[in-house]
């Protein structure tokens, strides 16, 4: 019934999903959810937006260049919602640049809704949510131009980034922006760590919505996710021991 080579994947994913649903249900029924550690990059968002407000300069937000189907882009939307609300609250200009037209339509709605939610619908400027280009480097050059011309005070980059990551981060460093970046693309993380003030590494990006909203249901989901990680680490240790002892049972089982 299950497609070839997917048996182990289906069983493991089902177990992971059940774990997540159990933790979400516990949180929904009011049971205590363990505290999660501080994420410096997300803690710094308020301070970074406050700095832009004090300087009277804009905040730039990039949701990356991933398309709408990319989990990192979807995780980025929650952070954009938060940043937009903060900017609306403090009446700070927020420039959101987009590479993907579908993502552009969504980010425009998110920013608009955030301004409406803060009672500042009149402050929302549709021109500040910009579609640049579908081409990676045309988008990159457009963002460079905005950073230099508009003298961006805070640069937030969250989502899927490729070669343009360092171009943005260095442009931000040259203009003296506070930079907060996050991606799960492992080959781009070192660039963000080297060039930005704060960097969210891998899964921290996906934890952002729970962290910022403090919603117990979302926090419950995070705890479930951690159980998945514990299982992965245990399987790796067990697999290493078995492989060292000459047994490939676990490896063959996971390949099915």
């Amino acid at each position: 019934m299950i497609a070839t080579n997917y048996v182990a994947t289906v069983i493991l994913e089902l177990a992971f999903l059940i774990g997540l649903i159990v933790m979400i249900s516990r949180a929904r029924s009011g049971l205590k959810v363990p505290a999660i550690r501080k994420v410096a990059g997300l803690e710094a968002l308020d301070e970074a937006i406050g700095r832009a407000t004090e300087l009277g300069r804009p905040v730039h937000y990039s949701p990356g260049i991933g398309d709408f189907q990319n989990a990192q882009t979807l995780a980025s939307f929650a952070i954009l919602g938060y940043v937009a609300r903060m900017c609306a609250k403090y009446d700070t200009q927020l420039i959101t640049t987009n590479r993907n037209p579908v993502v552009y339509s969504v980010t425009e709605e998110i920013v608009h809704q955030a301004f409406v939610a803060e009672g500042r619908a009149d402050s929302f400027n549709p021109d500040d949510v910009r579609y640049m280009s579908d081409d990676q480097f045309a988008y990159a050059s457009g963002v460079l131009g905005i950073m230099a011309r508009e003298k961006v005070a805070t640069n937030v980059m969250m989502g899927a980034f490729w070669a343009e990551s360092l171009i943005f981060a260095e442009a931000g460093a040259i203009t003296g922006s506070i930079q907060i970046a996050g991606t799960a693309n492992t080959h781009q993380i070192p660039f963000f760590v080297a060039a930005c003030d704060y960097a969210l590494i891998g899964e921290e990006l996906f934890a952002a919505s729970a962290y910022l909203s403090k919603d117990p249901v979302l926090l419950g989901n995070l705890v479930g996710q951690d159980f998945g990680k514990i299982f992965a680490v245990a399987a790796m240790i067990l697999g290493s021991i078995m492989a060292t002892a000459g047994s490939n049972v676990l490896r063959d089982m996971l390949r099915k």
Partner: protein
Amino acid sequence: MRKELPIAICAVAALIYVVSTYISPTVFPAGPELVRELNVWYLLVFACAFAVGLVNLAQIHIRRITQRREGWQFSIILMSFMTLMLVLGVFTTGRGTYSDWLYQYWFVNPRATMYSILVFYIASAAYRAFRVKSFEASVLLVAAIIMMLGQAPIGEVIWGQIPKMSRWILNYPNAAGMRGITIAATLGGVATALRIVLGIERGHLGGMGE
């Protein structure tokens, strides 16, 4: 209804993708066809969104030109080339046409130039990152020097073990760290997908997960 309908559509579409991937086509023969159909729908949505993006771009730059805002001359260049490319693209397609020429010689080269700029940014970022300010920065600096020497022929001339050390750093500490991040990020991605399918996270609908 404004939020429930998109969540319902999302859940149904996700279910189709999951079932088609994991269930054998002999049991669920309609699966691959449904996935193909959904992909066509996505392309249609993308095309419509592309038009919306084009309108946004035109609005911003036409306003900049009419109001003579700073850099309005560049907006004229952008609008001219965008219109030219659009018109040529509609009426001529294929190799050797004007649109192809415009793409190959006016677009590909500046794009390659932008990519090339990256090397200078890597140098300036490396300079900042490798300044020895802490123990971590020192470790980074030493590892980076070994890696760079290991990749260049001069490394082997200095000491024959440097390329081996470089490979060891790449294949063991680096690979272990990267795999750890990848596993955690993959689980995070699955959890995010589940939150969206179940309608728990609504960031993409303009909310904050409430």
